[in-house]
């Protein structure tokens, strides 16, 4: 068995410091054990046969030819699922293995286990599935099966002096984590199974797994193994049930690891969106009303679409005061790849549209992009369109002013060729380069919303080890690369004043920590660790740690931490206190665009974010840079190309993510206006920068080119065509 993430950190660094990450050196030197490195002597390999069709009946499955291949140990279909045949985060609508039909390309149909992965792959290819292909629903506008429709209604004035309308489109983005899905299932003597897995949420995996395996919860034990990025893509099950089914059938350890291409079919993506907006304002730029129709393509299964729709609706107009609102967010089922959680979660798509609208409104009112936003900005005491009171600091106007006053980079255009559009290949010498500046503002809910019982559990044990005080923190919270292991140790050091802290490997031997998503772990698991530490400290009875532990022996406490409750949105009006915390980030993008060749170089991104309290400056910077890069990807290049339900670019050769050459330097300003309801006053930080960088970059490209650019990602042809003067279809402003 490879080492998992259990770590001891001895540096005496507490909350607020850039404590050193225990995984940093290992990752940089290539020694970190990811889930794909899991190994157990005697293990065998599982492979998944997937549907080549987006929509088909299955007439029959003949596993005979696969079983004849030497080295093949088992071939399983839906008939072999020991328990419930369906799973799902929100609704159990997704079959473990396709039963009589397939609803998306890549849907798992059968499993093979063999003594070698290549043998297993060949055997999977030998399985004969007789499909009756049927028409696929691939246009969400034609879809009739609605996952959720959430209206938001407020006020009844839908007339104004200035009205701007727009239709916007966001392509399907992938989380593109680097460590593909992987897990190792080991059958246990008690008839249960131990699963070592890269996931975001151990307990919800278990809650779905156990019924499918027909086992009680306590016989299904999960341990987190090295996670190579997540961004939402590991919130749904991938091969968890499959690996356990094979392991239980064979009574042998079974490993499944996806390749890069399979990974694109093995997880959900960001919902593509079609959006229509109408903004009405007074002549001096104060919003009177917003109407919005947001259509999200959920693909073949539910996943977390309902919550994505909820976010798109409740945050659908952005952090602006709007007295009259008619927002309709709808998620539909199609035969496209299933979509679910991805960093920003429903708020990203709406943000691109409402920010594009704010720029149009600025132009129509003769105001600057910053001024229009300042005039409508929310602040503490404002209400969201759901009627919810913003009861914590929300200094948006000030953040925008701060952003505006940051120095602009030199130019245009840059003299260093590497800095020009096209980069090192020197595509441009700067002759047709225009500079543009754009702004973007985003608001994201932190933690789970709409009445979800959102909590985390921490077990903290203090004892003397070799005569020295030592703390062990044990939670089920998934370290997905964000630095949570480091943070848990920082909190323990600060709360207990003990330098030696071990953060135990996350597993289901302790209570649920909830998901590493919704920017929530610092808040919720941080809160649980702090509460457990406080309980331990109380038992020190006022004595210094060493003395207390000498006198009382080891002390262990377990605590659950919950944030303030949230409530469902009214199904008709959308009203309700659906969120527990809100976070703001604002971006300014400076771009150089070669208008002849359509190439964009983002010269600089500047961001201002209010995080309430900085817990680890270096990790925080990492989140802001990383989130901004992911937003840049959506603005300029990242898109899963789906045609008639088929994914055409399932590889990193063809699905482009920004490289170091595409990502510019960043200026950041971090504000600390504490949220009194949150532990340490912190505000979740991972998602907000992903929202605002996309519209800021799109706005900057519009400023440079004068084009309307209503779809992201923006591609070279979207710019070059129009500037060649060849095409004029009214898309020019």
């Amino acid at each position: 068995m490879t080492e998992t993430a259990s770590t001891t950190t001895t540096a005496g660094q507490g909350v607020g410091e850039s404590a050193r990450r225990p995984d940093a050196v290992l990752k940089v030197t290539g020694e970190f054990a990811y889930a794909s490195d899991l190994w157990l002597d005697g293990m065998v390999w599982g492979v998944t046969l997937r549907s080549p069709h987006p929509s088909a009946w299955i007439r029959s499955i003949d596993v005979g030819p696969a079983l004849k291949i030497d080295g093949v140990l088992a071939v399983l279909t839906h008939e072999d699922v020991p328990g419930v045949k369906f799973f799902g985060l929100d609704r159990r609508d997704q079959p473990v293995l396709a039963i009589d039909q397939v609803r998306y390309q890549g849907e798992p149909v059968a499993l093979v286990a063999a003594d070698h992965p290549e043998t297993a792959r060949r055997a999977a290819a030998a399985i004969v599935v007789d499909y009756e292909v049927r028409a696929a629903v691939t246009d969400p506008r034609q879809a009739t099966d609605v996952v959720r429709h959430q209206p938001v209604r407020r006020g009844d004035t839908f007339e104004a002096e200035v009205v701007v309308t727009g239709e916007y489109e966001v392509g399907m983005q992938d989380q593109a984590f680097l460590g593909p899905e992987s897990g190792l299932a080991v059958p246990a003597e008690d008839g249960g199974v131990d699963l070592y897995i890269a996931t975001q949420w151990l307990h919800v995996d278990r809650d779905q797994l156990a019924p499918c395996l027909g086992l009680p919860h306590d016989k299904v034990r999960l341990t987190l193994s090295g996670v190579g990025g997540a961004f939402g893509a590991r919130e749904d099950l991938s091969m968890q049930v499959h690996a356990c089914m094979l392991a239980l059938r064979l009574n042998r350890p079974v490993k499944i690891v996806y390749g890069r291409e399979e990974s694109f079919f093995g997880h959900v993506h960001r919902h593509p969106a079609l959006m229509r907006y109408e903004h009405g304002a007074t002549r001096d730029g104060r919003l009177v009303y917003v109407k919005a129709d947001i259509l999200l393509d959920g693909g073949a299964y539910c996943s977390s679409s309902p919550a994505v729709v909820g976010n798109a609706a409740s945050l659908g107009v952005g952090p602006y005061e709007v007295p009259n609102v008619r927002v309709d967010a709808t998620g539909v089922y199609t035969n496209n790849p299933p979509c679910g959680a991805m960093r920003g979660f429903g708020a990203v798509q709406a943000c691109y549209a409402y920010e594009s609208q704010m720029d149009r409104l600025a132009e129509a009112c003769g105001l600057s992009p910053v001024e229009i936003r300042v005039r409508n900005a929310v602040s503490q005491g404002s209400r969201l369109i759901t009627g919810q009171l913003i009861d914590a600091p929300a200094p948006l106007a000030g953040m925008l002013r701060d952003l505006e006053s940051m120095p602009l980079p030199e130019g245009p255009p840059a003299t260093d060729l590497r800095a020009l559009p096209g980069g090192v290949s020197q595509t441009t010498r700067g002759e047709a380069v225009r500079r543009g500046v754009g702004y973007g503002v985003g608001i994201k809910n932190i933690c789970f919303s709409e009445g979800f019982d959102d909590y985390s559990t921490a077990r903290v044990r203090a004892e003397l080890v070799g005569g020295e005080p030592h703390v062990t923190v044990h939670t089920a919270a998934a370290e997905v690369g964000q630095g949570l292991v480091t943070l848990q140790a920082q909190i323990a050091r600060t709360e207990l004043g003990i330098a030696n802290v071990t953060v135990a490997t996350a597993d289901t031997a302790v209570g649920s920590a909830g998901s590493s998503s919704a920017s929530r772990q610092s808040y919720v698991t941080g809160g649980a660790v702090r509460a457990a530490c406080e309980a331990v400290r109380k038992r020190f009875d006022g004595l210094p740690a060493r003395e207390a532990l000498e006198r009382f022996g080891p002390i262990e406490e377990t605590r659950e931490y919950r944030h303030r409750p949230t409530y469902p949105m009214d199904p008709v009006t959308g009203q309700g206190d659906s969120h527990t915390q809100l976070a703001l980030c604002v971006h300014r993008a400076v771009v150089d665009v070669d208008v002849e060749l359509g190439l964009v170089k983002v010269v600089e991104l500047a961001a201002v974010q209010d995080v309430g309290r900085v817990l680890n400056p270096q990790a925080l910077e990492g989140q802001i840079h990383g989130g901004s890069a992911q937003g840049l990807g959506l603005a300029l290049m990242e898109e899963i190309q789906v045609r008639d339900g088929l994914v055409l670019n399932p590889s990193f050769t063809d699905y482009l993510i920004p490289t170091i050459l595409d990502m510019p330097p960043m200026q950041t300003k971090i504000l600390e206006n504490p949220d009194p309801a949150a532990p340490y006053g912190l505000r979740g930080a991972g998602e907000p920068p992903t929202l605002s960088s996309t519209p800021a970059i799109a706005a900057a490209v519009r400023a440079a080119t004068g084009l309307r650019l209503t779809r992201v990602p923006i591609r070279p042809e979207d710019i070059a065509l129009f500037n060649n003067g060849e095409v004029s279809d009214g898309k020019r402003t």
Partner: protein
Amino acid sequence: MKPFAYVKPADVAGAVRAVSDEPGAKFLGGGTNLVDLMREGVERPDTVVDVTGLPLDTVDQLPGGGLRIGAMVRNSSLAADERVRARYPMLSQAILAGASAQLRNMATVGGNLLQRTRCPYFYDPAAACNKREPGGGCDALGGFNRSHAVLGVSGSCIAAHPSDMCVALAALDAVIEVESVRGTRRIPMTGFHRLPGDTPEIETELAPDELVTAVELPPAPFAARSRYRKVRDRASYAFALVSVAAALEVRDGAVTAARLALGGLAAKPWRAHEAERILLGGPASEESFARAAEAELAGADVRPGNAFKVHLARATIVATLRELNTGKGTA
């Protein structure tokens, strides 16, 4: 992946014999393209003949000023060669604009010449593709064809040739030297790749048992002022939407020598003969550059997904020639 035998001969005679003895054999260079295709089940060789051990890994000076590049020279070594950088800068730039440093370290000149299209349907054995399965149809025609060719295409196949290096070689009038059990022959670069016609599965003039042993670059003094420009979706590590290799010699405002080849646009590395004809002897002016580009692209056969390439190509051609004309274009 289908099981296969692996051999690594030490000399050229052994390599060509190994392939002629075994109809299902393929040469293996750096493997950066062949191995991917084998994984997808697109290429299914019975035997893989690794040619990276052959003594064909040097760049040698030819009498008269040309260069002879061994077929096993790695892409990164060729791009870094001082003589190439000084005399044929467009070639060095083209190679460096392709793939990533790691891939260029592995990829060989021979493998780059024979790399296959990036058409997504070609890579997907579940799709219809005449190149993969002759007669099966072409899903790209009515499907996703943003990356596809607009020049030299046929009703059977509209795949684009993906190489950057080959575009420069086409502009430079390179000659490919090949060897088989039947002996040695020389094929001009511009005739090396074939247009798809009704047989898109046949991509070059090379017989299946012929080994590329070298590429010869004739002397080309005007090429010292040459440029390779590549337009793509991100700053590095992406295939060309459009690329241009160009060299221009101007005396007293008139063009005295011109070379132009296009990438990303055509079924093969596209030598722009028509544009060169118009440029030669004419004024070195924006209008003349635009006219040459227009003429070359007049025959473009576009689909909705790739119509933009014509405009992008014209802009790129004009921008590249303009840059060479104003004298800022030497590497």
